[in-house]
């Protein structure tokens, strides 16, 4: 399925050129958007995503939905990247080493079950 706006955003992250949408008041959001979800402003500009983010919360999912059957158990986390938060699967880090405050970079990986692209977090290189 093609998802105009979202697909381009994911491709940009895969290329290391991730961005978010900023409104004049500095609220961040993710595409596809035509107005700021926080204040309604219509003027949105693409701004570069910070290189690294910080894990705010996470869970190791043991009972997956069918679209993640071959991934479980896996760790999903929400991480803050400046004015936006992103939700992704943590890769290249053992589950017991994931913690609140862990610094991660964002990229794109493949869902082993569906072969779809998905957002992944990896430990940020020092």
């Amino acid at each position: 399925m093609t998802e105009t706006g979202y697909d381009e955003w994911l491709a940009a992250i895969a290329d290391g050129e991730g961005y978010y949408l900023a409104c004049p008041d500095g609220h961040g959001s993710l595409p596809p958007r035509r107005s700021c979800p926080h204040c309604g402003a219509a003027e949105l500009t693409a701004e570069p995503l910070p290189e690294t983010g910080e894990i705010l919360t996470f869970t190791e999912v043991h009972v997956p939905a069918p679209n993640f059957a071959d991934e479980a158990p896996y760790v999903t986390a929400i991480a803050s990247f400046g004015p936006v938060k992103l939700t992704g699967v943590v890769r290249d880090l053992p589950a017991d080493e994931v913690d609140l405050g862990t610094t991660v970079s964002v990229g794109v990986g493949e869902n082993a079950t569906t072969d779809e692209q998905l957002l992944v977090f990896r430990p940020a290189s020092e």
Partner: protein
Amino acid sequence: MTDVRIAGVGLTKFGSHPERTGRDLFAEAALAAREDAGVSRDDYEEIFYGNFMGELAEKQGHQGPVMAEAAGLDCPATRYEQACASAGVAFRQAVATIRSGAADVVLAGGMERMNNLGTAEVTQSLAIAADELFEVRAGVTFPGAYALMARAYFDAFGGDSEDLAHIAVKNHANAMQNDYAQFHREITVEDALESPVVADPLTLYDACPITDGASAVVLVSDDYAERHGLDAPVSVTGSGQGGDKAALQDRPHLARTPAATKAADSAYADAGIGPDDVDVAEVHDCFTIAEVLALESLGLYDHGEGVGAAARGETTRDGDLPVNLSGGLKAKGHPVGATGTAQIVEMTKLLRGDHGNSDAVPDARVGVTHNAGGTVASAVVHVLEVDR
């Protein structure tokens, strides 16, 4: 504005009934509510019906007319879909319709059939209440989403898995006296802590079960109840709804549910009460942590104080503020699209004195129900009061 009274209530037994059709489940609850109300069939003017995943479970869209037939009624019927808050919003529209004077008698209810799907399919179906692009594709399941909130809560306010286990123990104990509940089995804190991890830090006993069931409520105007001499001692005095960003990542705080606060503030103002006036509550504990978030959003506890309420014995059957005397979603069961009106059924019976746990709240005058959709991107709160 016309006052709204609850003339009749009905439920199916909640549980695993994979062979029963949705229309049969709803028929049972609707006919029970109609019998309880004793209102003439010709007087029903509209049906407000909640259902979440009927397209997935039964390949049935356009369920309004199907359920009107099942209820044995000949009037317009509309389906409301708002994830786990589907029947809550249906009930809220029913209340608004009577208050506006547009109708004197309506039926509100909901139904969900789930167990005919396997666990994996149900997990996938429930996940559609989350944001498809930004959550489901990143592996967020329904338990996973609440696990993200639980860990954020522990980090922000403290509390732990043992506190949550006390909530599960309490709700299982309450369900023992509820004939309609899915579980009639007491559990211990150890049972809960040792149960398999679903999405850490949540275990199997932090989660509500997969439930088939239906619920229905007959609402009438105060004027109609008086003219027909109905025995309808419970009134709906407050109604409120709140909304939030669909995805957790777009909210400023991951361990708060402001949609429920907005809904509660509206409902309290509508009823002319405050949280201190609440005697008993039925809240949306799809996971144990959700009961905590509900209590705090309803203003019944300060942020950070709700997590220990069950362990301290304050929200148990014998506590100062009994919560989920029905057994809650945790032990009564959670037929998603039926839950909102099932809470109204339970609260009505608790207040009017014919619930298995009414003896725990003999003097209760004000009850509050809290029904949430998704990770509380939608919330509906109602205030019910009984003539004493």
